């Protein structure tokens, strides 16, 4: 593992290694709770809380936990933080709790969590691990917010509950339904690969056939 600077640990997962768009982790909440921006954002924030809390403790005790029970203790800590998050959201934000429903409890199965614990918090000091988790959490929140913004605007004509269009707007209901999650994520991935291709210098690349053209030309 190459040495990284603290700022890189924090910034890298926000954009260049975004958990949703680049690492493609945590797809379950990305599909399930991104029907409104508030839901997507709240899910991201709750996941960030679990990430940072678990990374802190996993990293703090990394030297006293033997390899044999490494994953078991990680999962134990993640599960405890997920349950804490579940109770806190229920007590402090009941409306959001009602909308997110069972998906808060399912944070425990989110692969972003165990991924960060295994790949980072197990090996690095506490401060770095917290920075990395915070960055990952922000990146995840950003990903969920982007997907949910597309879904809410097209599927309901609102952004965070604010009506954007006039009364004659006909919402594209499919974006509110489960397939909308796949579509919105797919469009985002397409758009981001287009940006990436443009950045690499493929000037003539067009958005629509970005996946099939200009791939091996430079090589």
């Amino acid at each position, binding site marked *: 593992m190459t040495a990284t600077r603290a700022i890189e640990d924090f910034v890298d997962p926000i954009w260049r290694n975004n958990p949703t768009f680049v690492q493609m982790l945590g797809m379950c909440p990305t599909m399930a709770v991104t029907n409104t921006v508030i839901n997507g954002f709240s899910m991201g924030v709750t996941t960030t809380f679990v990430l940072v809390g678990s990374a802190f403790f996993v990293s703090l005790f990394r030297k006293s936990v*033997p390899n044999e029970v490494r994953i078991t203790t990680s999962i134990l800590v993640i*599960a405890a933080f997920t349950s804490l998050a579940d*109770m*806190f959201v229920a007590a*402090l934000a009941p409306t959001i709790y009602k909308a997110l429903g069972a998906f808060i409890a399912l944070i425990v199965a989110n692969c972003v969590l165990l991924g960060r614990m295994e790949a980072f918090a197990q090996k690095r000091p506490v401060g770095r691990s917290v920075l990395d988790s915070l960055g990952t959490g922000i990146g995840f929140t950003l990903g969920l917010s982007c997907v949910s913004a597309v879904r809410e605007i097209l599927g309901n004509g609102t952004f965070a509950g604010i009506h954007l269009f006039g009364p004659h707007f006909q919402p594209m209901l499919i974006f*509110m*339904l489960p397939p909308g999650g796949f579509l919105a994520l797919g469009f985002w991935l397409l758009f981001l690969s287009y940006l990436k291709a443009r950045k690499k210098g493929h000037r003539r690349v067009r958005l629509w056939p970005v996946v099939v053209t200009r791939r091996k030309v430079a090589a």
Partner: protein
Amino acid sequence: MSVPGGHAPKSASLSTEMAADAPPPPDVRPSRLILILCSFGAACGLALALAFEWTQPRIDAHQAMLTEAAVREVLRGPDHFTPLYVSGGTLTATAPAGADPAKLDRVFVGYDQSGKAIGFAIPASGPGFQDNLKLIFGYDPATEQLIGMKLVDQRETPGIGDRIEKDLAFVQEFAGPRAPIEGVKAGRGQGNAHAVDMITGATISSRAVIAIINKRVQALAPALQNYTQQQGGAR
């Protein structure tokens, strides 16, 4: 079984090879693993117990507030209301001894300013399109009419089934019809005192609401009648 002498060294070397390939024996004693897991478990358990102590009163208070708001809505603003407990087909003002009041089947009787009972707010639940629906409805046993209906918890399809909660025209349909209610296509219910206009496109969810209410009214009607007569006789 006798083993030829010539084979013994070979099998010995084989076993040493295997031992070399096998992972080294764990240098951690099992007792330490158990101790570590137990202490992690205990610490997590303690944290959860403390969090539960802190959050549960808030969650309960919010639930009670939601119930009160729902009761007020479906009884069209009663002056006050009191809970009644359903046990063994009768309604009692006090919970049976030894039972947890929060877990018992409850209905709420609402009164107007003069202290006259105006109807019952009855919580009910049953299967919807995706998950169980929880609702509460107002019912007046004297006229057998519904007073109002409010969804308390539903997970119907956003934009389709969830109109049973969000479509105010549909919710308004539950003010006035006589039980047992009957779902009809929108506009076909003129002159039918039992008719409730269903939502086009959300037939299953609409039907579920109607079925839940009918079932509950049927089950509770004798108890409600008895209670009303008793109260009337006492007065």
